[in-house]
């Protein structure tokens, strides 16, 4: 079983190479990409089942045992992240296939789109299975470099401008991460996470704190937590809809995953939980207040993305098994729902020609399917029962109530408020884009004769909703309205169905998350598993390297 672990990285990389070798044959590229991603979904699902029913998988690359060799580790958290990520990658790919087929692939240089997309997937998966800090860095770099290409796809002025912001910020965070690794290595002499867990605990507490904060800042930029999040709403909205969707779903969550790992495995004794709770509260509040003041739906969603990262940090900051469990469930929920919302906005943009609420209207009548596809994830993100957003938030609040500290109670209040404000911002967007009449959106006559007073009152309310909002000056001009291909609708519907499945199967999934959360509170098990001498058939580390007669070249 352990031999299959590297496949989640190797399959997309090999498929990317193959797709790159067939630049002219779009059909072949698409087929390769779909097949690769579908096999990754299956593989990740198998990992999830095996890891849960048996135990953590540890793959020693090249037969070199940890801590000297490179270990790839799949535990319950990694397996869940892999499954959710590959499902999202596949869903978004189908969406972009639909978009590309309908547009005749004229907008993007497609010969690089599919390979880059696969490399992005490889980077994300590599980060999730990394068993040492440097491999995590390499995973980050793979996904970042792929994302640089995707965010500047087409090379229009707006995308280049946004891309430069994104690239420079990401470079700075990568350098910080690398420098932190250097510091960690200088202090401990290892980068294997299991061995680090042992050696960092032996360091003086002030050095632990410095290392912890250095890594936290590097991961915080990636995860877009409050003081380090301002690059996100500037860069994400300009990318093509599917690219924004997959970035929103996955890239920030890789940062959150790294924070979870560093807090639960590396820095168990170094306590920054208070700081995390404060940062979580500020992320929640600042993010959602940004969302409330946006007129462009893509920017609005980018701000809700930042805001809801706060919930995840909240769960990590509680540092209890229940908190981790709720965070893990919430990550799965948020990846799926946020991606679905961005895909739905892609449909809105296509049907309505713009994402600015100023120019949208009457879409409930002209596109009822899109209205429904936006409405369900909207309620879900806002945390309306019985959807998974509600279950995740309930889990977080339960964990906070168990903790019974003032900080946790404060966060509960902030969390509930942000949940309401999320619903307010999204419901306003929905009612303006879908509910009001088309004539009102296009700036019809101010007081048309023959209208009832009710209509006038309604009109005034709509104006009041828009009163304090203005289009960004660099907003893109209204595009031609285009037909929406069935495949785009189908992919979005599929994602909505998966988000509903998170609700329907919330029982088993939350139980899984609880087991994963409990495992995170016992880092010693992970250490034994990776470094210890466990029988090979169980898939743990062997603890020793078998001497080979002809030593292979080991990177």
């Amino acid at each position, binding site marked *: 079983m352990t031999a299959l672990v590297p496949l989640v990285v190797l399959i997309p990389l090999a498929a990317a190479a193959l797709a790159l070798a067939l630049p002219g044959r779009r059909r072949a590229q698409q087929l390769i990409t779909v097949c690769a991603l579908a096999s990754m979904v299956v593989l990740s699902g198998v990992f999830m089942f095996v890891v849960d029913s048996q135990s953590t998988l540890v793959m020693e690359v090249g037969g070199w045992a940890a801590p000297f060799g490179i270990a790839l580790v799949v535990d319950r958290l990694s397996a869940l992240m892999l499954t959710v990520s590959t499902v999202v990658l596949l869903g978004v790919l189908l969406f972009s296939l639909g978009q590309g087929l309908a547009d005749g692939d004229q907008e993007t240089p497609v010969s690089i789109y599919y390979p880059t997309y696969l490399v992005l997937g490889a980077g994300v998966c590599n980060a999730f299975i990394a068993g040492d800090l*440097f491999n995590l860095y*390499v995973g980050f*770099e793979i996904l970042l*470099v792929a994302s*640089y*290409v995707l965010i*500047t796809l087409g*090379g229009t*002025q707006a995308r*280049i*401008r946004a*891309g*430069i912001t994104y*690239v*420079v910020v990401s*470079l*700075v965070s*990568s*350098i910080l991460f*690398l*420098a932190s*690794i*250097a*510091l960690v*290595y*200088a202090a401990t002499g290892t*980068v294997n996470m299991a061995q680090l867990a042992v050696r960092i605990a032996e360091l003086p507490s002030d050095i632990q704190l410095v290392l912890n904060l250095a890594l936290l800042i590097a991961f915080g930029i990636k995860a877009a937590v409050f003081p380090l999040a*301002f690059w996100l709403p*500037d860069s994400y909205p300009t990318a093509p809809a599917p690219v924004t969707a997959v970035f929103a779903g996955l890239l920030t969550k890789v940062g959150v995953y790294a924070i979870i790992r560093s807090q639960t495995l590396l820095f168990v004794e170094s306590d920054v939980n208070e700081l995390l709770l404060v940062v979580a509260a500020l992320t929640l*509040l*600042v993010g959602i*207040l*940004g969302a*409330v*003041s946006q007129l462009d739906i893509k920017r609005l969603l980018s701000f809700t993305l930042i805001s809801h990262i706060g919930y995840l940090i909240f769960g990590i900051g509680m540092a209890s098994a229940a908190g981790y469990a709720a965070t893990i469930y919430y990550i799965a929920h948020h990846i799926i729902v946020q991606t679905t919302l961005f895909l739905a906005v892609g449909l809105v943009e296509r049907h309505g020609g713009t994402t600015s609420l100023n120019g949208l209207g009457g879409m409930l009548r002209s596109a009822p399917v899109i209205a429904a596809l936006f409405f369900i994830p909207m309620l879900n993100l806002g945390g309306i029962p019985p959807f998974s957003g509600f279950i995740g938030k309930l889990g977080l609040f339960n964990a906070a109530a168990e903790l019974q500290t003032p900080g946790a109670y404060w966060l509960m209040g902030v969390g509930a408020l942000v949940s309401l*404000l999320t619903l*307010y911002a999204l419901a306003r967007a929905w009612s303006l884009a879908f509910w009001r009449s088309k004539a009102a959106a296009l700036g019809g006559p101010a007081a048309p004769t023959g209208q009832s007073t009710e209509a006038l009152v309604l009109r005034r309310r709509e104006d*009041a909703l828009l*009163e*304090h909002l*203005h289009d*960004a*000056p*660099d907003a893109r001009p209204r595009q031609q309205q285009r037909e929406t291909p069935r495949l785009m609708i189908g992919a979005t519907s599929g994602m909505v169905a998966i988000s509903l499945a998170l609700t329907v199967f919330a029982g088993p999934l939350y139980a899984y998350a609880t087991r994963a959360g409990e495992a995170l509170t016992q880092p010693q098990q992970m250490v034994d598993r990776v470094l210890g001498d466990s029988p090979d058939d169980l898939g743990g580390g062997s603890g020793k390297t078998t001497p080979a007669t002809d030593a292979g070249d080991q*990177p």
Partner: protein
Amino acid sequence: MTVSMPLALVAVMVVLYGGGVYLMLDRSLTRVLLGFLMVGNATNLLLFLTSGSFGAAPIVGDADASEMSDPLPQAFILTSIVITFGVSAFMLALIYRSWRLAQHDEDTVQDDDHDLEIAESEVLTTDEVTDEDLAENPEFEFENSPEQAEEETR
């Protein structure tokens, strides 16, 4: 008086970090790239310095194991150099594209129109709410006051 090798490297690293950060704060994108290269090389030096004392090449048979220098940081540096090289090439392409699009003589960071609008407006824009506005629109009071405080920080 001789300066020991690690100390000299630390001094070089500090200079590279300082110069790199200074350059990255510049408006010209080419300087940002140069700054990134300097900071990247400073980090490579930092990685190199983590290997502790320097010894013989870490090749089995060439020297006794106790005299070898630590090979792992060198592997890190190699990886990091490759990544920095690739990203720099991409950045150069991006800068060139930006320069072509902007059709200016300079390769500076382009202004954000929204930021400019806020900076240049003498009166408060509608994004900002004064007390009088709140008095006129009491129905917005409950949510706008905290929002605007945050909005200004953005």
